[in-house]
């Protein structure tokens, strides 16, 4: 006999990781209690949860701040990245001359240039956003450029046989072909925007009203408020997962009718 829920693919996809997570949390709690760990070394999940509730106001303000920088950076990276890709596919010359600089931006360690950016840009929020954009933009540029070039050559020949304009070629052929690649880029980039925002804030160390989650982590570390530190970390992680899930959902929505990646396997 088959259990109906176990054979439901979708249920398993959601339930299995949650079960693993819960198991891990229980093991963590049990270990902490059994070994009588002091809270300032390693708090158990219950202590972290308690801190999440107690310090909710501070944490939530930090979350909003970090989220604001992340989303701004992600949005700017998306717009600039797509614009750059569209520019790159206009001519091989443009791509050859500019692409290495996109790579350069990608491989420059952000921690090394963040202090400079923070000095140059007065407004801290913008300084953080710029750092996050630098980290997040590359996957969008490289994936979208690849996608815009990954056109069925026969379809392209046919378009040209019908004497299509460049605009028709772009909107009717290149952009639809690029969508799966573009969404792949978005998934990576959304996580990178968050990492960029957090790393930049660590470097900037902005406190006060503009403190984001990263600053809360730093501050909690100094004050040995380790449960709060973990709570802030948990919020960052959850934000990352939520962003990723949102991107998967969007990509499914856009591609489900035709692209292999979004098709349900039918038996």
């Amino acid at each position, binding site marked *: 006999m088959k259990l109906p829920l176990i054979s439901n693919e979708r249920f398993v996809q959601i339930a299995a990781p949650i079960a693993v997570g819960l198991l891990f949390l229980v093991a963590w709690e049990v270990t902490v209690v059994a070994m009588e760990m002091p809270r300032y070394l390693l708090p158990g999940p219950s202590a972290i949860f308690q801190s999440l509730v107690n310090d909710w106001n501070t944490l939530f303000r930090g979350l909003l701040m970090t989220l604001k920088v992340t989303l701004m950076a992600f949005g700017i990276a998306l717009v600039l990245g797509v614009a750059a890709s569209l520019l790159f596919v206009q001519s091989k010359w443009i791509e050859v001359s500019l692409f290495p600089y996109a790579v350069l931006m990608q491989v420059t360690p952000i921690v090394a240039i963040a202090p400079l950016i923070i000095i140059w840009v007065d407004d801290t929020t913008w300084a953080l956003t710029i750092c996050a954009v630098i980290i997040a933009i590359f996957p969008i540029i490289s994936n979208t450029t690849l996608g815009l070039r990954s056109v*069925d050559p*026969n379809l392209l020949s046919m378009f040209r046989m*019908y004497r299509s304009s460049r605009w028709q070629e772009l909107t009717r*052929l290149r952009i*639809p072909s690029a969508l799966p690649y573009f969404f792949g880029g978005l998934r990576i980039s959304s996580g990178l925007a968050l990492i960029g925002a957090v790393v930049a804030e660590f470097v900037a160390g902005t406190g006060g009203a503009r403190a984001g989650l990263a600053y809360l982590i730093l501050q909690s570390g100094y004050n040995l408020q380790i449960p709060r530190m973990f709570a802030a970390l948990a919020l960052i992680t959850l934000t990352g997962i939520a962003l990723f899930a949102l991107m998967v959902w969007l990509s499914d929505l856009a591609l489900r*009718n*035709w692209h292999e990646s979004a*098709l349900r396997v039918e038996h």
Partner: protein
Amino acid sequence: MAFAAVCGNDRFSLNQPTAYSGPGTVSGDRTVTQPPATPLKQVHPARPSPDAAVTDGRTETMGSRPVVQVSGVDKVYANGTVALQGADLTVKQGEFVSLLGPSGCGKSTLLRIIAGMGEATRGTVKWWEQDYKVVGDKGRKLAFVFQNATLMPWARVRKNVRLPLDLEGTAKRPESQQKIDEALEMVGLQGFETAFPRELSGGMQMRASIARAMVTEPNLLLMDEPFGALDEMTRNKLNDDVLRLWQAKDWTVVFVTHSVYEAVYLSNRVVVMAARPGRIVEDVAIDQPYPRSSDFRVSTEFAGYCRRVSQALERASQMGEEVAS
């Protein structure tokens, strides 16, 4: 295996089965029910470099205006493959020409060059006695059916079929809707307008691609093994449909196929190619009246022509072997 099967499986049982064994698909292995009653006609000898003028004498019934003139065309791909060497082919207004040859002999390459999709390495191609730039003007429309359906996976069937009209900028006209409906009906895809290509079978995708080619009412229709993936019934029906439209609409057709029977049934002329290097070696005229019906498929003349073409094909395959060894 492809041509050994096409040539060897029929009732004519050629004396020397070909040793050719390249990749490819056997398509439409129609058995002719009557053995040929007429003695074999003399097939003209292979012409490694046929003069375009030689073919002219047999097509008096057609208009004399050339639609495509391929002369001395070589095609060398970037990796050094010599896909065509000295290809000469003239297709005249109103002709139905089939290209036949072993897999990999350059049929698709030649057809793409005729379509203006691939540059010839050497030689010239002219359309309506002019160079490439005027193709596409009024009354000079090309359409191409690829070996694979080559549909846009993100677009529904109707939008795929409408594509040429969209690119021409005529899709919004009222008569365009009717053209799309007609094309869909002809290939039997009414009711599937809103399906995505992946929801169709391979044969249905191919039919959608044929509908797309017909929607602009092309003057020169180029088809690369369009019916290879279809079942016999659909294939026969589409063969008849293409013939009917060809006659009604004054099309000129160049048709690549693997099937001797299909080539003989459809064409005025069957052009046989050899491989390595790809070239045109024989040009068999099929002097039979149209409309051709299923009676023609079982006639002795049909059997005779099939035999001639099969033998030409066998010789072409052996030429490829000699060069290769």
